[in-house]
């Protein structure tokens, strides 16, 4: 997980997912999106735990969406990215790019 201001890998993935879903993202749709795009099997609990962490840090915010009988009357929780979140994402991306700068990797050699 991210130390201090920096985002951990999974935190970045979740944040990017929330961005992608443009404010309509809720737990399960996020999970599906992540699984689809990364090919990584992820539990809904892991997604929520990360969202909670991100919310505590102020990078995302959430509000209640609609409830439905199939959900047992429970409301959906919708997430959207906060400005602080986009900043953190950009910072992480920049950091990685700077480390990548000038490096070419050939998977066939060490």
């Amino acid at each position: 997980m991210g130390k201090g201001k920096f985002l951990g890998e999974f935190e970045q993935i979740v944040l990017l997912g929330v961005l992608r879903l443009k404010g309509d993202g809720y737990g399960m749709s996020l999970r599906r999106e992540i699984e689809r795009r990364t090919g990584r099997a992820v539990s809904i609990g892991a997604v929520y735990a990360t969202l909670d962490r991100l919310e505590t840090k102020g990078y995302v915010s959430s509000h209640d969406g609609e409830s439905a009988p199939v959900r047992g009357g429970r409301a959906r929780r919708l997430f959207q990215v906060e400005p602080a979140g986009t900043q953190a994402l950009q910072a992480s991306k920049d950091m990685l790019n700077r480390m990548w700068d000038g490096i070419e990797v050939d998977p066939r050699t060490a």
Partner: protein
Amino acid sequence: MISSPRLARWLVERAAGRVHGPALVGDLEEEFYDHILPTRGPTRAVLWYWGQALGSAGPLLLRRRERARSRKSSSQAKGDHMWMFLQDARFSIRAIRKNLAFSVILITTLALGIGANTVLYSVVDGLVLHPFPFPDGDRLVTVGTEYPRLGTGLNFIEHMSPAEFTDIRDEARSLQDIVAWDMGNRQVSFGEMSDNLFTGFWWGDAFQTIGMSPYLGRGMTAEETVRGDAVAVLSHRIWQSRFGADPQIIGKTFGLNGNPYEIVGIMPPRAEFSGMDLWMPMGVGPEVFPRQRRQFQVMARIRDGFSLDQVNAELEGLARRTELEYAREMEEYADWRMTAFTWTDANVQSLKPAAYILLGAVGFVLLLVCSNVASLLLGRSAQRRQEMAVRVAMGANRSRLVRQMLTESVTLSIAGGLLGLGLARLGTNATAEILSTLPFVSGTVELNTRVLLFTAGVSVAAGVLFGLLPALQNSAVSVQGTLKSEGASVTGSRGRLGLQRVLVAVEVALALVLLVGGGLLISSVARLNAVDTGFQPENVMTMRLTLPREDYDAAAVSTFFQTLEEEVSAIPGVVAVGRGDQFPPIAFSFTRVATEGLEVTDEGQLPVVLSTIASPGYFEALGIPFHRGRSFSDLDVEDAPMVAIVNEAAAELLFEGQDPIGKRVRGGVDEDSPWFQVVGVAGNTVNVGPDQPPMAQVFLNHRQVPEWSNQMFLLVRTSVDPYSVVPAIRSTVRGIDADQPVYRIQTAEETLARSTASRRIAATVLSIFAAFALTLAAVGIFAVVSFSVGERTREIGLRMALGAEASQVRRLMIRQALMPVVIGGVVGLGVALLLGRLMGQLLFEVTGTDPVTLLTVTALLATVALVASYLPAMRASRLDPIEALRYD
């Protein structure tokens, strides 16, 4: 439609907490029903749900812990508890796998103890606590009666008359759905086959009373039972065994005395009533019977708002009113009583003592197992000292350590419990097999929900019990002393050794109690087997025939049996043939007997004797000797003077030492009842069971009183294997009456064996427990002595270097090893003496304080203890002093 798994949902909800729980669960539900279920099908959808739940628990709990930490709250947050438990469980499994061999020994020992408990509890649950499937079983009662003037005790079977039944039915306000029934054997024909079924004849709708619906079809209405409509209900068992569970059975007919009866219903499974296979209407109303015809049983439900005590109070009032009204003409009503018992209680009374003793015994076994495991764990803990010290240094406080170790021991014991369940399954199957051969034992022995809950509870409790001591001991660690290489902290190991010695004492005490119990029972069974039966039960085949009164009048009964005996005696291999309405140890027919010359007007003062109706061949077939006079002969025919034979006990009782030959007796004080002249005195037999002294008995010749019995046992002595003549006997019977079935086919030896069955079973089971206990105690002693040798190696080296001889060292070790054994033995003897009294009913000719048994058992235990401590002691004496001194 499949719904989402509740348990998985609950798990996720608990792990997620209040903040995100609802949204998360909502997401899961929506995904499950809208996307997963339609595309993947029910099984894979449920699997998916569980996968999500289990995979989510970890991250969610971690997150909650983070929150708790950041909130600087104490680690008592709920998520923390669960987290800690999961962590501990993972550590436990790792620790168990690291010490695999040791853990396997522990788990196996636990499995044996828990498995034994499970089997026994399933027996007690199935036979004593819940033998019947009737809902609200403790509101279902039967009413027993007691007539002191007739010399009868409290009895439920064939002890109530129709008038007494209607009195209850019409007047008792605390009871409802009161029904009554009579039982008897009837031969029924289904197409070509005929069968003898134990049948109940009912007044009232019994299904209402027992509170169950028929498995198929319907029951009989109260009106039908009184009118005698041609309807009947079959038992579930017969429907399965004789009719192959034919689903079209309703509406089919069978024949009884040539009349067709329609099968209208099938009983629910396991609804057992004294082994009745057929339910039929009584056919007449209760008012046709005389008030004194007591051959019926009564059952009812306690009305809502009343208790069993209130029922009994009301019955007492009713009894006293009846006494007031009828006691003058019917003397048996003086001081008579009616008592209601629950149907279960009435049926299992006789089983309770043995059941409770065995339950207690198996509890002891479990305690023993726990002591043993605790002792072994304590021995192990030397190696864990370092681990404990490291944990303490890393910040674990004592309660945390204790919790960790308890989790470990509970995990061990749950593993033992699971293995034990597997063993128990074998045990219950075997037990169910054995029980199916015993007659009239209601209930099934199985691993039902109650039993499984019991096993789970016992496993966890055992884990805490044996784990507590080692956990407390291990967690009391001094960090500095342990982390330095001065590993052998004297105080620590002293304390441990002391605890182990205490456990040895406990084990020895428990083993001794079990050994004494087993020994007493074995002694009883041996003495029972040695009892002189008074007759020769070897090579005697017995079977029962009931001649229906509708087809056979008294004369025909007599002729039938005469012919039967004559023809059977002609079968090759048959040595003698006789008949009787009862034979040892079966006893159910008693009478009060008056002796001529002794003027007694009050029937209540007459002595009670066993009264048997027999034929001349009875005595020869059973091998009962005659001491004076003669047996019945062919001269004692219908018009000849009425004769009787008495046994030695009756000669004593009725004639006070005078020669009974020529004197006369009769039943009761009624002027019209006939006198019988005694013509012979037969030897005593175990006529009321091998565990009782012979009862006074009077025999009458069936040929002279054929109207008094139409149900007889045929007794056939053979020179060949008794079973080999059965087919010939059957065809002889068929030759006389093609429709007459023969049932209850058993040798006399088997009948005798059955009467001691429960004692023998208890003896066997208890002996197995005792042997197991002895083994465990021996292992425990061995382990503790070995451990103490290990701990004291340096000390031993020192002694030997200072001049002690090997034999001295040996004696020292053995003496110290036997100290706890002696203490445990004394305590055990004390407890055994106390408990011996509780076994009273099961013992025969042996008191609870039998010195022979106590001495034998103590000697056995002492020997075993000596042997168990000898080996390690030998090892100690063989130590090389120099090596020993260097031992760390």
